[in-house]
C-alpha cells in the first residue's frame, strides 16, 4: 500500500513536469532562426533561390510544430501507460513490473528533455557555423 502511494505521488510529479515542459516549449513553436532574409540559417543572400526558400521555410516550421506536438502527445501517453503499469504492479505486489515502469518513465523523461533542450541548441550551433561560399 505504501509502495502504491509512493508510486502514485511519483507519477503525479512526472505528469506535472511533463505538462510544464510541454507548455513552455509549445509556446516556442518555431525552430530558432536568425531572422535573415532567406529564412533559417541565412548567412547570405540566396538570390533567385530565396523564392524557393520562402516557400520551404513555412513548411519546415509547420513540420517542426507538428513533430513537437506529436512528441508531446506520445510522451504523455507513454507516461500515462507507465504510470498505470507501475500502479498495477505496486497494487499486485509485482516489483519487477513496477521497476520496469519507473525505468520506462525515466527513459521517456530523458528522451523528451534531450529533444527539447538539445535540438534547439544544435540548430543554433549549425546556424552559427553555416559557411559562406568558398569562392
Amino acid at each position, binding site marked *: 500500500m505504501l509502495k502504491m502511494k509512493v508510486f502514485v505521488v511519483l507519477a503525479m510529479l512526472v505528469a506535472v513536469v511533463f505538462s510544464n515542459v510541454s507548455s513552455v516549449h509549445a509556446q516556442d513553436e518555431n525552430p530558432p532562426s536568425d531572422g535573415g532574409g532567406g529564412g*533559417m540559417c541565412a548567412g547570405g543572400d540566396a*538570390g533567385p*533561390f530565396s523564392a524557393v526558400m520562402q516557400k520551404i521555410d513555412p513548411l519546415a516550421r509547420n513540420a*517542426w510544430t507538428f513533430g513537437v506536438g506529436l512528441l508531446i502527445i506520445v510522451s504523455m501517453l*507513454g507516461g500515462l501507460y507507465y504510470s498505470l503499469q507501475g500502479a498495477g504492479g505496486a497494487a499486485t505486489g509485482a516489483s519487477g513490473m513496477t521497476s520496469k515502469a519507473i525505468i520506462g518513465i525515466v527513459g521517456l523523461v530523458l528522451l523528451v528533455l534531450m529533444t527539447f533542450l538539445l535540438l534547439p541548441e*544544435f540548430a543554433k550551433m549549425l546556424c552559427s557555423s553555416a559557411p559562406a*561560399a568558398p*569562392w
Partner: protein
Amino acid sequence: MNSAIEILLGILRNAWQAMIGLIAIMVILGMLYKALVATGGTFAGFPQPVAQAIGSMVGVLSIGLYAFIILPALVNAGMSSINVSGGCGPLSDIVLAVCKLIGAIGALRMLRASFVGTVSTMVGSGGGAAGAIIESGEVLIGMLLVSAAAPVAGAFMGTC
C-alpha cells in the same frame, strides 16, 4: 567573358546558400523525427528502435557537421591548388575564372551529395552517407586533375 563567368559564379554562390539552408532544415527535422521514433520505441518497450533512432540522430548530425565544417575546407584546398597552377600567358585570367567555375560546380556537387546523405540517413538507409563521402573524393580528384592539366593545356596551346 569574365563578366559572364562572374555572373555564373554569383548564381552558384546563391545556390550554395540555399543548399546550406536546406541541409540545416533537414538535419533538424531529421533529428526531431528520430527523437519521435525513439520516444515511440520507449513507449512500446522495444529497445531496438530506440538504439537505431539514437544512432541515426548522431549520424544525421555528423553529416550536417561534415557539410558545414569539413566540406568548405576541402573546397578551399581544392580551389587553392587550381588557382596556383591555372594561370599562365595571355589567357591566364580566363583560365583562372574557368577553374573557379569548375571548383564552384564541384563544391555544389559535394553539397548535393551531403544533402542526399542527410536524407538517406534520416530514412534509415546507410548508402547515402557513404555516397556523400565518395562523391566528395571524386570531386577533389577532379579538381586535382584540373590543377595538373591546366598548365599542360596552356603549354600545348602555346600560351605559356
